[in-house]
């Protein structure tokens, strides 16, 4: 009895699919990672000065936080469509949309981290003759790092998921494979791409967690800090939003 190919029977899990389309899957994954990494890096580069600006007082904080919150409320489908006249069908459109979303989380977390730096630490540094620049780089930023990294992790995980919507303009990484599979109800392709998205998100999260541990060796010295990792993992509890649409 000849075994029917799982491609013909349209099985959910299909080894033959993985073998025959491995190149396509690899290309889509590379595009997905590329879009995510570029978006988060640009997002961070924009969010950092915005957070420093917002810290100068409520006169700056209100518009910065207000604008990023409004941007975050716009659904991704609408965001990408509103950018269409500016960017056309390009990866730049998807990256711009994702950067705008990441700003909300990153600005808030950077601000929260900097605000939580103990006043005594800052006073001590000033007393030792630290100027504002050196104070920021050598005292405030290292102490704010756990909150900043928590924001970076949330932003990265959401960005991985949101990238799929980029398939609207043909630049959605694994989302493109999902879209292509829909007209023929190709189960193996939809499931494989969906699982790969989640795997990418989890791997990215763990890599950033590893980076955080590397960058903050002092948090591992005292047992007290290590005892409560769940809290830092969750980030600041206030905006427990889920940006997926």
């Amino acid at each position, binding site marked *: 009895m000849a075994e029917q190919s799982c491609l013909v029977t349209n099985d959910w899990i299909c080894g033959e699919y993985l073998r025959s389309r491995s190149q396509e899957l690899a290309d889509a994954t590379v595009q997905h990672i590329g879009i995510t990494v570029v978006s988060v890096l640009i997002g961070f580069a924009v969010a950092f000065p915005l957070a420093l600006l917002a810290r100068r007082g409520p006169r700056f904080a209100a518009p910065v936080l207000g604008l990023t919150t409004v941007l975050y409320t*716009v*659904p991704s*489908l*609408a965001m990408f469509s509103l950018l269409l006249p500016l960017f056309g069908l390009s990866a730049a459109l998807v990256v711009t949309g994702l950067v705008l979303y990441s700003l909300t989380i990153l600005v808030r977390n950077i601000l929260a981290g900097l605000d939580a730096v103990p006043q005594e630490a800052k006073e001590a540094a000033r007393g030792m003759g630290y100027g504002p620049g050196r104070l920021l780089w050598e005292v405030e930023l290292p102490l704010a790092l756990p909150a900043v990294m928590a924001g970076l992790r949330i932003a990265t995980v959401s960005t991985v998921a949101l990238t799929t919507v980029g398939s609207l303009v043909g630049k959605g990484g694994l989302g493109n494979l999902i879209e292509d599979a*829909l007209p023929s109800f190709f189960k193996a392709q939809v499931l494989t791409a969906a699982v790969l998205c989640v795997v990418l998100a989890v791997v990215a999260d763990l890599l950033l967690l590893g980076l955080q541990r590397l960058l903050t060796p002092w948090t591992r010295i005292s047992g007290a800090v290590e005892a409560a990792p*769940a809290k830092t993992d969750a980030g600041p509890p206030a905006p427990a939003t*889920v940006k997926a649409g």
Partner: protein
Amino acid sequence: MGVIGDAWTWLTTGANWSGDGGAAHRLGEHLYVSGVSLAVAGAIALPIALYLGHKGKGGALAVNLSNVGRAVPVFAVLALFMVTSLRNSGYWPTIIALVLFAVPPLLTNAYVGMREVDRAVVEAARGMGMSGGQLFVRVELPLAYPMIMTGLRSAAVQVVATASIAAMVGLGGLGRIITAGFNTYDTAQVFAGAVLVAGLALVVEGVLVGLDRLLSPLRRRRPA
């Protein structure tokens, strides 16, 4: 200017609002699936979150659920539904997906709100002889209210956003105006649809912020 003007023309043309594929019908679909889903998600998530928060159990569940919700792409979940027989069941694939993505923000925020109630206040209430039920209704619930409303707001915005993604897999809702515009290379229609979807999300957010202030049991907002 050209696109914005054309989009305005699209929005002010009556013919684009009428009929089965018209904006009015799509808006109705959008509001219907969003409303039903939010109600179902609230009915599932809030009792669980409030109970767990009152008992002080299940913190890991509340936090992890939120993280899982973030990592799973909405588009992938809708697509998975559409390659099963669920695709023939009307609004169900959309509603199920919307409920799945509305539960995490509702549950996590309500749980955190309950747990963040000052322990000293809880002890004082117990010392005054309040029963578990009285403590819950008269102390914990009013104090957790801001976070519960935050969860409701982010769930509502999430639901409206997810309902627009449903159009990408061929389901109804306002997003269809956008996807139909993409199919016919009609940038003005894409832009007009996007304005409608974004506007709806902002209106929902605004209405809920207003409702929050109106219903607040403490009348004085906690600093955000």
